[in-house]
C-alpha cells in the first residue's frame, strides 16, 4: 500500500501545513505505510506540484490542473480522490479549514472513520490525537482499509527539498456535480507573517478593549516580525476578524514565542497555543489562568506595559 497526501496550496507554493502533513506521511510510510504520493489539485498549480516533487522522500506527485479545483471545493475534491482510494492505505490532509472541510467528505465516501488532528504516529494504524480541547490525549487504532487522517501541522516538522525529484503525473479531473458554487472570498491582507507559521505571535484578548487598540500589538509585532492573533473573546467582541482567532476552534499555533496580552487564558484559548516554546503573559489580573502556562508573566495594565515593552525592544535592538 501507499500513503496519499492531499496538499493545500496557493498555486505558486504549498501551504506550510502541507509540508508538515507530508512529514507525517513519510513517518507513516517508514512505519509500514509505503511510498508517499502527493496530490496537487487546483488551477495553474504546476509550481506547487513541482515544489512537492522536489521534497525529500516524496515518490510521486499527481497534478489535476482544472478550474473545478480552483477554490478547494470539498465536493469536487472528494469526487477526484475517491477513485484513487483503492490504491492507498492512508489518505492525509492538513488539519486546516481546507482539510477539515474536505477530509470527512472523502472518508464517508470510502466508508472510513476518519482520525482527526493527529499529533503523533505510534505505528501505521495507531495515532495520538487531542480531545476535549487538548485537555486529554487519546491513542486510537484504526483498522479501516483506508485510513483518512487530518494532521496537526504544529506537531510535525516541515518537509524539506532533497534527493531525486519525484515524477509528476497528470490526474484527470472528475465529473462536476454542480451542487456548490464559489461566490467569493474576503481574505485578510496583511504584510505580517501568517499566524500558524510565524516564529513569534502576539495575541490580544478582551483586555484590549477595542479593535483600535490592536495597533499597540501591531507595532510590537512589526518590531519582532511577529503575527498578530486574538482570543475568541476579542473576535466575538468584533475587535478583529475571525481569522485572528487562536484556540480550540480557531487556529492552532506553536511558535518559538507567544505573547498573550489581556487574555485570561480560557481552556479553549490554551488549546490553541500551549505547545508554544516560550509563553509570555501580560495581564492585570494576577490570578488569570494564563499565568499557569506562561514562562514569563507581567502583572500590570497592558496600556502601560505595551509602550514599555516597545521601548525595551527598541533599546535591545540598538544595544
Amino acid at each position, binding site marked *: 500500500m501507499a500513503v496519499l497526501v492531499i496538499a493545500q496550496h496557493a498555486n505558486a507554493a504549498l501551504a506550510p501545513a502541507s509540508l508538515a502533513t507530508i512529514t507525517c506521511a513519510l513517518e507513516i510510510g517508514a512505519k509500514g505505510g509505503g511510498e508517499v504520493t502527493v496530490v496537487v489539485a487546483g488551477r495553474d498549480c504546476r509550481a506547487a506540484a513541482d515544489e512537492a516533487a522536489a521534497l525529500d522522500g516524496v515518490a510521486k506527485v499527481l497534478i489535476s490542473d482544472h478550474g473545478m479545483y480552483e*477554490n478547494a471545493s*470539498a*465536493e469536487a475534491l472528494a469526487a477526484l480522490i475517491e477513485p484513487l482510494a483503492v490504491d492507498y492505505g492512508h489518505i492525509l490532509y492538513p488539519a486546516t*479549514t481546507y482539510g477539515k*472541510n474536505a*477530509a*470527512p*467528505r*472523502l*472518508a*464517508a*465516501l470510502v466508508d*472510513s*472513520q*476518519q*482520525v*482527526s488532528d493527529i499529533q503523533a504516529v505510534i505505528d501505521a494504524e*495507531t495515532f495520538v490525537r487531542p*480531545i*476535549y*480541547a487538548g*485537555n*486529554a*490525549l*487519546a*491513542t*486510537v487504532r*484504526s*483498522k*479501516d482499509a483506508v485510513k483518512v487522517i487530518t494532521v496537526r501541522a504544529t506537531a510535525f516538522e516541515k518537509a524539506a527539498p532533497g534527493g531525486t525529484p519525484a515524477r509528476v503525473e497528470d490526474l484527470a479531473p472528475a465529473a462536476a*456535480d454542480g*451542487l*456548490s*458554487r*464559489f*461566490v*467569493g*472570498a*474576503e481574505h*485578510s491582507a496583511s504584510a505580517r507573517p501568517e499566524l500558524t507559521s510565524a516564529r*513569534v505571535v502576539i495575541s490580544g484578548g478582551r483586555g484590549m478593549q477595542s479593535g483600535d487598540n490592536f495597533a499597540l500589538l501591531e507595532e510590537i509585532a512589526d518590531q519582532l516580525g511577529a503575527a498578530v492573533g486574538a482570543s475568541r473573546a476579542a*473576535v466575538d467582541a468584533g475587535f478583529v*476578524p*475571525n*481569522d485572528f482567532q487562536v484556540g*480550540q476552534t480557531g*487556529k492552532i499555533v506553536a511558535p*518559538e*514565542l507567544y505573547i498573550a496580552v489581556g487574555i485570561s487564558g480560557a481552556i479553549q484559548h490554551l488549546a490553541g497555543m*500551549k505547545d508554544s516554546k*516560550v509563553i509570555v503573559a501580560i495581564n492585570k489580573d494576577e490570578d488569570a489562568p494564563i*499565568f499557569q502556562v506562561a*514562562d*514569563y*508573566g*507581567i502583572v500590570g495594565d497592558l496600556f502601560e*506595559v505595551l509602550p514599555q515593552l516597545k521601548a*525595551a525592544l527598541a*533599546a*535591545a535592538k540598538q544595544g
Partner: protein
Amino acid sequence: MKILVAVKRVIDANIKVRVRHDGSGVETANVKMAMNPFCEIAVEEAVRMAEEGIADEVVLVSAGPGPAKETLRTGLAMGADRAIHIVTEETLEPLAVAKLLAAVAAREDPGMILLGKQAIDDDCNQTGQMLAALLGWSQGTFASKITIDGDTITVTREVDDGLETVALTRPAVVTTDLRLNEPRYATLPNIMKAKKKSIDPLTPDELGVDITPRLEVLRVTDPPAREAGIKLDTAAELVDKLVNEAGVL
C-alpha cells in the same frame, strides 16, 4: 422548508474534564452535561428561520443514551417543533452518526440539515461533511452567515485566511461556526411548552444502520503539563530574559 437539526449532549463547556486513572477515558459520572455549544447555535439559527417564515418546521435529532432526551428538550424549549431520539447505549463515532442522520433525512426529507461544526468532547469536526457525502448533497461548513433565496442557500464560511462565500443548491448540509448567532436562553413559558412537544424514539436497527465503532481507543492520558514560570516587574526585565535566558529574541 423543513429544517433538520442534529444536536449532541456533551460535558458542559465550563467543566474542566478529568482523565480517568485507568486511562479508559475522561470522567463522565456526576459531571454536568449540556448541549454542545455549536449545536445550540444550529438550533438557534433554525428557530430564527422559522420565526422569519423561511422554515415551516424545525425537527431536532439526537443519538445517544436516555439522557439525550434532556438535550432535545432544551432545543424544544428554544423553539424547535418536535424531536427524534435515536436511542443507543453504544459509543457513537461520527461516521455512525452521519449514517443515522442520513437514514432520518431519508424519512423526513428536509430542505436543509444544520449541525454544529464540531462537538467539544471528541473535537472531530466530521459529522456534517460525512452526512453531506452520504446524501450526495453539497456542504457549507463553518458558517458565519446563512441566507436562503428560493432553492439557493448562500453560506459565508469562516476559513483560515478570512471569509469565503459559497452558494449551495437545496437540499444541503450546513455546519455552524461561533459567529453565526448568539443562542437564546429558553424562557420559563417555553420550557413548559416544550414538555408537551413530541420526542419520538427510534433505534439504529429500525433505521438499518450498523453503528459498530471502527476505532479502538487504546488509552486516554493527560497532556504533558506546563509549569507556571516566573513573574517579572518590568518590560525591560522581560526583554532581557527573552534575549539572554530563553534565547527567543
